[in-house]
């Protein structure tokens, strides 16, 4: 009996609800949309003349971006007559968003571009970036001279530069790093360590002296823990997982890694270490690696030991570290990892270049972008040495402005130090950069289009053999197997194509 009544009520209610919802949604959806759309159009229009629209990645969206934007704009207005519009995008979505903007020819002035996100070479190929070779030399002379010519070469495509380089650490600085507790306990003396084999007694002692869950050499199932190419002088080429060149050979040709004897020898050496138990029973899952590291579950790990790395590792793990660089440093594609490009759609190209000059030479401006406003987002700890810290009550987590990525904006060597133990690290890094031997193929960009399918297949095969470099395979069986499968997928064709392009690149130099 009550059912029809209920149904009637809800029918009436349903009508009423629908009506209300319709009216509400009409108001809500249309009302804010219209003014915002106009506003959007207005800012885009005005931005072309008043403010440089600048896109870059960020680790979180900070409340005080607007505050910093205002301060930076004021600064720039005085110097070069334009303001700036800061558009930080999350790292996780940065590349996707920029690719869409570029594909849609959206108007903006400058953006962060690199060989690992918002791909520089693709952007050049698709005509997204403006050729700034001449204007850089004319309007940003200090920046042009400050970056060494070898580095500019690595940003060149067909002899032209399409982005300004943000200086930071460019070299691999490969070597072992150890939690100090193990180094001290087992008497590791860096003076006696000149090559990785010299570590063997230390590893043996760790293996015998520590519980089974502490590895002598840390490694994961994604290939971390393997010895890097620079150590045995193999340079990457063509962005493939298997093509290598001999870094010390000026006329080096690309070859597959299985033909590169030093790599095969390295695999044998690593296999020996693995058989001795230095890598533990099995590699850790990659996702667990950071947690294992924080609980000191390894006695050594191969990585980039750039200057200041001990302090950095301590800040992550809260125990002491010690490290040594054991490989010769080469200048490969490091400079292409952090650059800022000018969009072809800009109407204000000259102002962008002038901005590059300012941000790379003026410490105040640069650090404003990196750390925010003095006494609001940071305070001096030691003005003489250039060390800053967070104001009282502000932590790295709750700070309203703390992008923590100084290499994003410009020359990192102009950044203030955030840790007293890092003082001097910039000078040391700059020295490493300048002393590095340029790879024989600096500036060569491989056009993957003709062998895209083959590369993708071989890439997938290489993934399966990731732990070859840490000795978790029967080498005598796995290496020929890997070679055969890669060859069947067209490895020879890829190498041939790389060498063909390499030859014509050399001829054009």
């Amino acid at each position, binding site marked *: 009996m009550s059912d029809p009544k209920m*149904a009637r009520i809800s*029918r009436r209610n*349903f*009508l009423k609800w*629908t009506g209300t*919802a*319709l009216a*509400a*949604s009409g108001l*809500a*959806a*249309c009302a*804010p*949309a219209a003014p*915002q*759309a*106009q506003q*959007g159009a207005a800012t885009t229009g005005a931005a072309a003349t008043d403010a440089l629209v600048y896109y870059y990645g960020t*680790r*979180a*969206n900070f*409340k005080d971006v607007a505050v910093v934007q205002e301060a930076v704009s004021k600064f720039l207005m005085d110097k070069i007559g334009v303001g700036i519009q800061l*558009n930080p*995008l*999350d*790292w*996780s*979505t940065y590349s*996707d*968003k920029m690719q*869409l903007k570029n*594909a*849609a020819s*959206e108007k903006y002035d400058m953006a962060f571009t690199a060989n690992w996100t918002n791909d520089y070479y693709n952007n050049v190929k698709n005509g997204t970036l403006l050729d700034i070779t001449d204007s850089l030399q004319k309007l940003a002379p200090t920046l042009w001279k400050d970056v060494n010519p070898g580095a500019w070469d690595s940003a060149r495509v067909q002899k032209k530069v399409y982005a300004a380089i943000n200086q*930071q*650490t460019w070299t691999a600085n490969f070597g072992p790093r150890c939690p100090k507790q193990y180094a001290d306990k087992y008497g590791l003396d860096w003076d006696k360590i000149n090559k990785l084999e010299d570590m063997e007694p230390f590893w043996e002692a760790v293996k015998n002296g520590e519980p089974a869950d502490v590895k002598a050499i840390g490694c994961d199932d994604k290939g971390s823990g393997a010895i890097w190419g620079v150590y045995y002088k193999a340079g990457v080429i063509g962005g493939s997982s298997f093509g290598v060149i001999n870094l010390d050979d000026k006329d080096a040709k690309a070859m597959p890694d299985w033909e590169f004897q030093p790599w095969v020898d390295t695999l044998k050496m690593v296999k020996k270490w693995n058989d001795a138990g230095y890598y533990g029973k099995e590699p850790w899952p990659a*996702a*667990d690696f*950071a*947690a*294992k590291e*924080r*609980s000191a579950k390894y006695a050594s790990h191969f990585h*980039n030991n750039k200057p200041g790395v001990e302090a*950095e590792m301590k*800040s*992550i793990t809260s125990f002491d570290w010690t490290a040594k660089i054991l490989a010769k440093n080469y200048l490969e594609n490091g400079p292409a*990892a*952090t650059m800022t490009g000018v969009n072809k759609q800009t109407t204000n190209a000259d102002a962008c270049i002038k901005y590059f000059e300012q941000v790379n030479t003026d410490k105040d401006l640069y650090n404003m972008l990196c750390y925010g406003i003095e006494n609001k987002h940071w305070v001096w700890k030691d003005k003489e040495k250039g060390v800053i810290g967070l104001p009282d009550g502000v932590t*790295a*987590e*709750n700070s309203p402005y703390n992008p*923590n*990525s*100084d*290499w994003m904006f410009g020359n990192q060597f102009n*950044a203030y130090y*955030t*840790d007293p133990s*890092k003082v001097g690290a910039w000078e040391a890094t700059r020295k490493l950069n300048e002393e590095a031997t340029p790879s024989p193929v600096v500036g060569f960009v491989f056009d993957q289009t003709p062998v895209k399918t083959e590369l993708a297949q071989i890439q997938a095969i290489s993934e399966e053999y990731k732990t070859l470099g840490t000795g978790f395979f029967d080498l005598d069986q796995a290496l020929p197997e890997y070679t055969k499968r890669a060859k069947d997928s067209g490895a020879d064709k890829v190498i041939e194509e790389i060498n063909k392009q390499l030859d014509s690149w050399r001829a054009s130099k």
Partner: protein
Amino acid sequence: MSNATRTPKMRSANTYWLSNLVGQGAINLFLLALSLACLLPFVVILAASFSTENSIVNQGYSLLPKDFNTLAYQYLLVDSAQVLQSYLVSVTITTIGAPLGLLIMALVAYAMTRKHFQYRKAVAFYIFFTMLFSGGLVPSYILITQYLQLKDTLAVLIVPSLVVGGWVLILRTYFRDLPEELLDAARIDGSGEWRTFFQIVVPLSTPGLATVGLFSMLMYWNDWFTSLLYIEKTALFPIQYLLYTIVNNMDFLDLLSQQAGVRVDPPRIPARMAMVVLAIGPILLAYPFVQRYFVRGIRVGSLKE
């Protein structure tokens, strides 16, 4: 349930009672196992979100939190104003988008079933066509950002997903099953098209409407991709997108550790789990609400015959 088919002669009351118990018991056990299989993953997630990362990595997952702490939630909720704002955005687009979309889709689907509507085939083809072909990402992006100027608006989160072709066809199937005589009778009694639709068609199609309504609600609630494309203002981040960026940035920080100076070290795995807990919370309420309509719809259908 099967009482009627069994005669008392064939089995004594005692064995019947026993077999009934065994049967009931087996069914109950099976359903219990099924519910546990659905429920346990949530318990594990909940427990993991309150554990420390070290305990998860070193000892694995468990049903009870190990080293109970709320670090993961503190990490995700560090900017609680933003989280609240994002919940508000999500609730707004879901409560506006789902009913509005349902209304539009129902009206379109109903029109397509009316035989005296001349262009119903054309409309059906138009709807069907969108299921097979789309404009592609870049053209849609250009349309929405440059022609419609919808970038960074609430409307962009609602309007593009109002009508989904497949769901219109589901609704059409429901409406088509309504007896034509019923609608004719309504017309003879003087009911106009609107009244017929809202007072006769809609109440008789609640299961279909509830299904599509639930789909639509879930779609709006779970959608982060639209925001990824069109939303840059943090004030307009829906909760799913906000959590997506927080968790993904965490992974990204690891990749960046080479360059970045001082690393902020987040509780990765627990934060991921806490994200799941925060994201599913409110939408769970939608299920019991919609379930009412499923049940009643079935009853209405059976009475009709």
